[in-house]
């Protein structure tokens, strides 16, 4: 196709448009990385603020590090492994080669999600089996103590990346092998090369371009991957993509724009350098076509090579298998506590403060909802020590034996918690939990977009507000709104009532009432005036109010849910002592005050709750609006119409899950 006629202006225009389509979003990302304001749609002037913020953001920087590390390691391993595999395939009979190539193609042909899910299941099954095996080994000898619990993490992430990278390397090395003249190797051996030398001096140089392009593809795939990482990284190793995905569910910080810009420029510079060098070398080659190539000295054949080769193959095989185990055993030397909470649910200064005071490193992660947290724990992918589930979920976790009993001797600050929040129905003897916050669920609406006073759940199902309503994206809360509206008990186990509530939500959805089903995305949407009505938690409303004064909150007249979120320790936790230290620290009055001021959720610590108005006055030198205080800490007359969730029986939970899955259909 060397018919370089060039194209007409119209055709060039088409290409330009496609180029623009591909690059416009990237340029927008870049432009807004220099924005002085926090919005990614409103320009407030030039600033480098987000770049400095970025460098101080541990979470993002760590995920960049993980991304690069896993991509590099996976590329190296996959390139070596894939090259050997391709050579091996090349040496096989046609039939064997074809069937192995077909298996090799599976990860490439399969959707990423299938690869991710199946690897995830493999790891889960392996870890379960390993747990039983290690328990058995530990029970009859005490020389070596095997860790009984492995979790997904960097090791499994690396394995997954190697898995989907190798086929690409094979795909680009194989054609080079086929193009290679088979007589070359024979010729080399005839001329006195050993078999090994022929391999290194003839085969490898011949297929080098294939190896390089395979490595490049592998690296690209690794950096670009999200789905497979998402299912195999567990909770302790988060790649940049996973961090971004987590952030898009909440408030996205323009730091993300800054990191995009940095990545983009780095790659651009690298590519320009490579291309300029290549063009330069091509020119040189053309000007000196017959430059003498220095002859490589040929080493003497050695007898050790065949042995080495066999040992090498064995070592490689063992190494491949051993990776799984080794990564699970990953040293847990330093004192760490893995905390999983909700988005925007802590004053992050507290984390630093705790680390400085105790020397325990805090790994702080967030889950999306109680149900998602449950999935993580049940699947065995979670590496958490402390979690902060809500009341009903605590009940469920206790009944399934997933929580550890706390040693309250290590948590003296538990005494500061108001008796009102102790021994509640979900944990009647209070053996497992220390309350973190409490609050109510209600309707948040934008007074500038709604022209009537709102006090009923009916607006959540009203066609009048089509496409203006954000429904909460978890089954329990969404159906609670419908149950309240219908006048049923929010803890009902009657399937007919649940079905009726579900139909209400489904009809509203079918009529286009909902703009979306959201959890923490709600911040961005409500603050930006992108939706008029939503249901969410009182404390989060107050956070939004700081950024948009038009928002209002109401606990509907039909009643609602009041909840207690409490800190618990997982049965599988390896850091129980550190976990209790963390819980004690957070339960202190000072931490509760700081938290209340930051997240606007009411504290169960009596001293902190009562002392907050004074604390606020001292800090901001103005009086705390009593209305705000009432929304944060709902007065008895509001709480009277609210009810707490109870843990539902297994069949009802299954029914919830079924309804919830059907809602998406």
């Amino acid at each position, binding site marked *: 196709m060397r018919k370089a006629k*060039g194209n007409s202006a119209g055709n060039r225009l088409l*290409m330009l448009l496609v180029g623009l*389509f*591909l690059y416009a979003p990237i340029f927008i990302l870049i432009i807004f990385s220099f924005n002085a304001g926090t919005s*990614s749609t409103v320009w407030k002037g030039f600033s480098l603020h987000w770049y400095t913020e970025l460098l101080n953001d541990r979470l993002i920087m760590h995920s960049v590090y993980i991304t690069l590390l896993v991509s590099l390691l996976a590329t190296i391993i996959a390139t070596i492994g894939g090259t*050997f595999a391709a050579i091996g395939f090349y040496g096989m009979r046609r039939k064997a080669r074809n069937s192995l190539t077909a298996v090799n193609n599976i990860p490439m042909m399969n959707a990423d*999600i299938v690869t991710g899910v199946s690897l995830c299941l493999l790891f889960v099954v392996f870890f379960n089996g390993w747990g039983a095996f290690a328990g058995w080994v530990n029970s009859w000898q005490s020389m070596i103590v095997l860790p009984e619990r492995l979790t997904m993490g960097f090791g499994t992430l690396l394995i997954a990346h190697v898995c989907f990278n190798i086929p690409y390397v094979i795909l680009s090395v194989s054609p080079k092998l086929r193009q290679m003249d088979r007589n070359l190797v024979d010729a080399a051996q005839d001329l006195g090369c050993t078999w090994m030398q022929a391999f290194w001096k003839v085969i490898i140089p011949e297929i080098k371009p294939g190896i390089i392009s395979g490595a490049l*593809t592998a690296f690209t795939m690794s950096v670009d991957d999200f*789905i497979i990482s998402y299912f195999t990284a567990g909770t302790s190793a988060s790649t940049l993509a996973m961090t971004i995905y987590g952030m898009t569910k909440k408030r996205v910080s323009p730091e993300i724009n800054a990191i995009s810009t940095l990545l983009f420029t780095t790659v651009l510079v690298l590519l320009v350098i490579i291309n300029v060098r290549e063009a330069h070398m091509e020119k040189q080659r053309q000007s000196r076509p017959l430059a003498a190539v220095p002859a490589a000295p040929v080493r003497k054949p050695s007898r050790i090579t065949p042995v080495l080769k066999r040992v090498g193959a064995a070592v490689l095989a063992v190494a491949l298998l051993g990776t799984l185990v080794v990564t699970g055993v990953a040293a847990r030397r330093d004192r760490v506590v893995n905390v999983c909470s909700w988005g925007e649910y802590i004053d992050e200064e507290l984390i630093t403060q705790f680390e400085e005071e105790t020397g325990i490193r805090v790994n702080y992660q967030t889950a999306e909802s109680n149900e998602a947290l449950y999935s993580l724990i049940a699947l065995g992918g979670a590496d958490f020590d402390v979690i902060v589930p809500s009341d009903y979920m605590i009940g469920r976790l206790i009944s399934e034996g997933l929580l550890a009993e706390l040693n309250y001797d290590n948590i003296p600050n538990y005494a500061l918690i108001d008796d009102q929040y102790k021994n509640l129905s979900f944990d009647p003897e209070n053996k497992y939990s220390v309350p973190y916050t409490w609050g109510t669920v209600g309707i948040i609406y934008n007074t500038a977009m709604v022209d009537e006073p709102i006090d009923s759940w009916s607006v959540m199902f009203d066609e009048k507000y089509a496409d203006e309503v954000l429904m909460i994206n978890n089954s329990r809360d969404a159906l609670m709104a419908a149950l309240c509206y219908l006048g049923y008990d929010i803890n009902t186990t009657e399937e007919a009532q649940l079905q009726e509530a579900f139909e209400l939500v489904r009809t509203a959805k079918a009529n286009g009432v909902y703009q979306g089903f959201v959890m923490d995305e709600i911040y961005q949407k409500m603050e930006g005036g992108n*939706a008029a009505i939503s249901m969410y938690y009182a404390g989060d409303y107050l956070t939004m109010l700081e950024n948009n004064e038009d928002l209002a909150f109401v606990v509907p007249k039909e009643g609602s849910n009041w909840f207690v979120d409490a800190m618990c320790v997982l049965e599988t936790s390896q850091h129980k002592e550190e976990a209790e230290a963390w819980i004690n620290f957070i339960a202190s009055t000072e931490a509760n005050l700081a938290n209340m001021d930051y997240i606007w959720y009411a504290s169960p610590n009596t001293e902190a709750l009562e002392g907050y108005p004074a604390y606020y006055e001292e800090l901001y030198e103005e009086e705390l609006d009593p209305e705000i205080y009432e929304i944060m800490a709902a007065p008895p007359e509001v709480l009277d119409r609210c009810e707490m969730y109870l843990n539902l029986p297994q069949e009802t939970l299954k029914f919830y899950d079924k309804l919830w899955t059907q809602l998406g259909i």
Partner: protein
Amino acid sequence: MKNKLSRFAVPYVVWMAIFVVAPIVIMVIYAFSNGEGGFTWDNFAQMGAYGSVFLRSFKLALIATAICLLVGYPVSYLLSREGASFQRIAMVLIMLPMWMNFLLRTYSWMTILENNGLLNQLFQKLGIIALYNNITGSEIEYFSMIGTQGAVVLGMVYNYLPFMILPIYSVIVKLDGSLLEAARDLGADSVTVFRKVILPLSLPGVLSGITMVFVPSVSTFAISRMLGGGTELLLGDLIERQFLGGAYNPQLGAAISLVMMAVVVICMLVMNRFGEGEEQAVML
């Protein structure tokens, strides 16, 4: 010599058995078991209820693939007629966005398509929204784009268009120029040359392009979650929800994955039958 070389593949064959074959076997076992580990058909029996999700996913993925093909083919063809340095730069430019994670790019579209987003701001400034209200007599303040199926398709096209362009381009650019000359010498006009020579010869590239766009589109969950607002589930969302989302049921998730995998594989086999087993175009 050749047989000696085959030993190099042994570690990888072991690796494949553990990390390619075993996971799929485990997935199949999960798909046929209930929570307690017994055998059941239940997970598949429930599948009928999710028919509409399957239909929607395939519909959106097909539309996205068709658009990618309609845009990607002309671009690849036109590219191959440009000068060498132009081609080199264009290839780099097409590859470049892939080095930024696709979630970053999708996130950017969120800010563009939002109700108060950049595109709506632009429409407002240009008076397009006022004009639309004048013509239709409506009173909208913005076009709602985010949370629609259109936005999801846009996200798919945007993210996977390079996967369509690259294989087609790499096939077309390698076409033997003398074939085209021969066709012209034999009296074919440029339309005929394209239809009878270039198009059939570029088919392998088209097929692998279709595969590379369709498969990720049909199984995505991040794009539909970010641009679709979570109101219209796709297959990917449905699966994700059973494993790490709000409705824990890995057995059902495994069953859905299995069915999706089977449908995709059948589609690919049928399509490749049309391609008569032509070798897949090699990317890059």
